[in-house]
């Protein structure tokens, strides 16, 4: 294997920016927690994009797995164990198990039918969290818990009160998750997913069990989405049912489309734009969502392949 600088340029740029973020974020007029939020939302969007951009299947119910991860982590810290590690494991398992069970029920559906049914399943979890006051805190959200310092052997990392440490903790998990997704997408299995996106009929007539492959892609996507959910809960030390609401699923779809769903890093760019816009506009107006909507419409009309899609086209020309 040779190291192709031109091909690796996007990766190098992304990692340099992310690793140095604590050094420049305040000079850019922002703050570290916002950077952490970008990384968390990017992980969720990249998880969704595994299914959306690389398998060609549109889910409008990924908030369910994001929320299950968030509640799994929050409930663990609130009721079970004061351990950040356990919280993440429980949250991810919750999302993975739900996806494994729901997957076989929906992988036969395509297009808008698939999207509608994923919304329906997602709303089930939303209403459970909303109604089950005694455990989840209902509409007020789950409070009275905090992410815990990290103990690794004899060492302790303070990710509780030190925002920069927490940023690097989230970034390390992000790096691992993204590496696994990238590795899978370059494998023969990953190429069968891209084949399904490109032409399902052709893929079926190559002897691929398309529903099985979509189910596996769905599982991988939902599991990483749950991981993003656990980090989201840990970031805020709080979860409420909106993390499970279907508009949250829409947010992830918007992020993927804005950044570019055919580019690996597109959702990261989309997440940066979305989180920053949300932060900036919501300080100016309570109607910030209208303006995010306008930006989204503009992107879809003028850059149908997202922001990174445009950059890539430039590079090709």
């Amino acid at each position, binding site marked *: 294997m040779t190291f192709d600088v031109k091909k690796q340029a996007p990766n190098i740029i992304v990692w340099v920016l992310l690793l140095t973020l604590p050094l420049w974020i305040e000079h850019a007029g922002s703050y570290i927690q916002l950077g952490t939020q970008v990384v968390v939302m990017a992980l969720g969007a990249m998880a969704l994009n595994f299914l959306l951009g690389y398998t060609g299947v549109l889910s409008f119910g990924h908030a369910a797995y994001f929320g299950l991860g968030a509640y799994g982590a929050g409930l663990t810290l609130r009721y079970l164990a004061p351990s950040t590690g356990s919280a993440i494991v429980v949250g991810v398992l919750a999302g993975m198990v739900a996806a494994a069970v729901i997957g076989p029920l929906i992988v036969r559906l395509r297009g808008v039918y698939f999207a509608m049914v994923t919304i329906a399943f997602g709303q089930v979890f939303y209403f459970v969290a909303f109604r089950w006051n005694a455990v989840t805190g209902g509409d007020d959200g789950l409070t009275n818990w905090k992410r815990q310092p990290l103990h690794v052997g004899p060492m302790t990392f303070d990710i509780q009160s030190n925002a920069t440490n927490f940023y690097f903790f989230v970034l390390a998990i992000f790096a691992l998750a993204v590496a696994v997704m990238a590795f899978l997408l370059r494998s023969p299995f990953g190429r069968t997913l891209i084949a399904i996106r490109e032409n399902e009929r*052709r893929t079926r007539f190559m*002897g*691929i069990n398309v529903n099985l492959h979509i189910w596996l892609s769905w599982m991988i996507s939902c599991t990483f989405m749950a991981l993003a959910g656990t980090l989201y809960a840990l970031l805020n030390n709080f979860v409420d049912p909106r993390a499970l609401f279907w508009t949250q699923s829409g947010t992830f779809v918007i992020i993927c489309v804005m950044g570019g769903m055919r580019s690996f890093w597109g959702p990261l760019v989309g997440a940066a734009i979305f989180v920053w816009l949300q932060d900036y506009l919501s300080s100016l107006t309570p109607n910030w969502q209208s303006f995010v909507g306008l930006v989204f419409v503009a992107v879809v009309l003028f850059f149908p392949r997202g922001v990174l899609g445009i950059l890539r086209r430039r590079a090709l020309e």
Partner: protein
Amino acid sequence: MSFLNIDNVSKHFGSLVAVDGVSMKVEKGECRAVIGPNGAGKTTFFNLITGMLPPTKGSVSLDGQNLAGVDPSQRVKLGMARTFQITEIFPELTVRENIRIPVEIAAGLRLKPWMPAGMAGQIRDRVEQLLDEGGLTRIADRFAGELSHGDQRACEIMMALALKPRLLLLDEPTAGMGDDETHAIARLIKRIHRESHMTIVLIEHDMRVVFNLADRITVLAEGRPLAEGTPAEITANEKVQAAYLGDAA
């Protein structure tokens, strides 16, 4: 028993009888053309062979194995590969990637989340070999969706061959092509047939292609078998002339 044995298959869509009691036996290494006027039921007949549609009556067997209830993707594993009347390729991938995917599938890697040690070179060599055989090397790095119709068809045929089939089914391989492209595709099919002794069943409209390629010809008309024989026999058959060749003239 013949290699491909189609025994008295029928397909009804409600009251419409698209295919009505057709039998066909194809021997190993044979190139068989199925012809007939528009609406003769050729494509439905093809779909019964590949399992896209279940027959209302009758049976299909490949190499002695009855295929009743075997779905299309399983039929591929048994050695059936097909192309479509409207080319089905991966438009946003390069030609090389279009070929690479079926090569990996044929190598049994469909669910492998990593490339097994030592396989990468073998896969690459096979891809380059197929690109070369299909005359696609010069366009290997272009996106399949932006190729000419003829090149897309050649790509699709090589994708089917990459699966190492025992039976290759081609649904109107030269449909909608100009003379040059038609010749190129016919040459490609002929070479595949001659060099690998591949068993081929093809539907085709262009009579020059049919008479040039086929060992035997089956003629369908209104869903029923009208005649079967060598190209010379079919040319001489008066029923065929009346029903089909007469129309074309």
